[in-house]
């Protein structure tokens, strides 16, 4: 398929690997792939196996389902129990364990939870069920938010009264800043999320090389893309350069997609947001503006939830910060599997634990120290 096959050339990926090896020399280099889709690709294509042992790839917080707080999941579960509610969501959210239950479990008990492929489907469900309240679980980053904002604008145009969004949308650059400020990790370079960047453009990362001297490369999702991005990062690191480069030029423009951003900020405004493992990051979320408040589930539909609790044995939070790896979790692969996930990082196919599990043929290096 065009735009895919030519970037899946194995021979090219291997040659890039040897270029990377000779460029990097002896020093230890730690790179973070921020986006969960990159994590999945890294494991699927065996990228870690191609790289020299002194390059360490860490997964970051870029898996929307993984970073969604238990409190949000508990709230979604509570809504699903209301008999006049139809809960609509992308499939990944259903299996995520909350504090006491999951949407999947509530479905088996009769809750009306429907998996949709797009917000267009959710709107259609609302139109077909005007006597019920239809709530869409708004989880996702810059890539997904325009599609949710569009649905709210559409509901508004049509004067719909039964469509609501429970928003836990998040923004990537503030999370990268929080990791850098947290100081738990020494990150030598970021592989920046390609599809988030189709919307944001590349300028949103400029503060990272400028303020932290850490190079950033926006990358596509095929093996050649990722290897090329790593090569560029290693080149910058060994030469003492720090800048934002764009490997994914076929899809990412410097200015991003201004039309999509206009739609986002028509409907949403920045707000503080709670990230699993990281905590509340200032201005890292998006809440529905006053003007569209009638589509905000929280503002319109009362729900009570008990205090949220984390599974004390799940280290998903630390994994999302890049400070631990799945093999350090005692539940990994035994009690926690994609079929029976105990934590969010095992649910989504782009969750780090799921990626390690699904592509286990390529076991990662044990972390040092």
């Amino acid at each position: 398929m065009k735009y895919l096959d030519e970037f899946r050339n194995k021979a090219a990926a291997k040659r890039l690997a040897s270029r990377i090896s000779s460029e990097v020399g002896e020093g230890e280099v730690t790179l973070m792939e921020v986006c969960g889709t990159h994590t999945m690709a890294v494991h699927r294509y065996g990228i870690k196996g191609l790289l020299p042992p002194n390059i360490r790839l860490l997964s970051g917080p870029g898996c929307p389902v993984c970073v969604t707080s238990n409190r949000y999941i508990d709230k979604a579960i509570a809504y699903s129990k209301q008999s006049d509610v139809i809960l609509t969501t992308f499939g990944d959210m259903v299996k995520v364990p909350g504090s006491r239950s999951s949407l999947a479990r509530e479905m088996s008990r009769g809750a009306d939870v429907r998996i949709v492929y797009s917000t267009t489907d959710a709107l259609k469900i609302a139109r077909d069920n005007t006597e019920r309240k239809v709530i869409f679980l708004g989880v996702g980053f810059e890539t997904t938010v325009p599609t949710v904002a569009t649905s709210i604008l559409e509901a508004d145009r049509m004067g719909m009264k039964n469509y609501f969004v429970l928003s836990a949308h998040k923004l990537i650059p503030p999370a990268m800043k929080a990791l850098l400020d947290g100081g738990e990790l020494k990150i030598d370079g970021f592989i920046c999320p390609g599809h988030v960047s189709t919307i944001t453009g590349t300028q949103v990362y400029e503060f990272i090389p400028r303020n932290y001297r850490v190079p950033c490369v926006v990358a596509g999702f095929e093996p050649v893309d990722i290897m090329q991005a790593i090569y560029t990062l290693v080149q910058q690191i060994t030469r003492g350069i720090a800048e934002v480069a764009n490997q994914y030029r076929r899809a990412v423009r410097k200015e991003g997609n201004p039309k999509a951003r206009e739609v986002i900020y028509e409907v949403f405004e920045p707000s503080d947001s709670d990230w699993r493992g990281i905590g509340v990051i200032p201005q890292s979320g998006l809440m529905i503006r006053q003007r569209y408040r009638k589509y905000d589930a929280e503002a319109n539909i009362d729900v009570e939830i008990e205090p949220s609790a984390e599974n004390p044995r799940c280290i998903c939070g630390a994994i999302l910060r890049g400070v631990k790896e799945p093999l350090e979790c005692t539940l990994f692969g035994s009690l926690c599997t994609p079929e029976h996930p105990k934590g969010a990082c095992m649910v989504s196919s782009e969750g780090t634990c799921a990626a390690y599990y699904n592509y286990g043929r390529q076991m990662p290096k044990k972390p040092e120290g």
Partner: protein
Amino acid sequence: MCLAIPIRIVERHGIVGIGEVGGVRRQVDLQLLDDVQIGDYVIVHAGFAIQKLDEEEAAETLSLLSELISGDS
């Protein structure tokens, strides 16, 4: 969840496009992009086209790549 794939637009009816990928046709919402033409490749995420693919840039990336790895055996 940020999974998105390149799809070729084969029909367009206002903001609704029909895309084709690997012989399968599916509906694509085009309202987040200006002037998508039939024959264009777009990146589709959750039913919406979020960006057009740029053929020249793709060729450029590949030629950079072949420059980079030529000379190796």
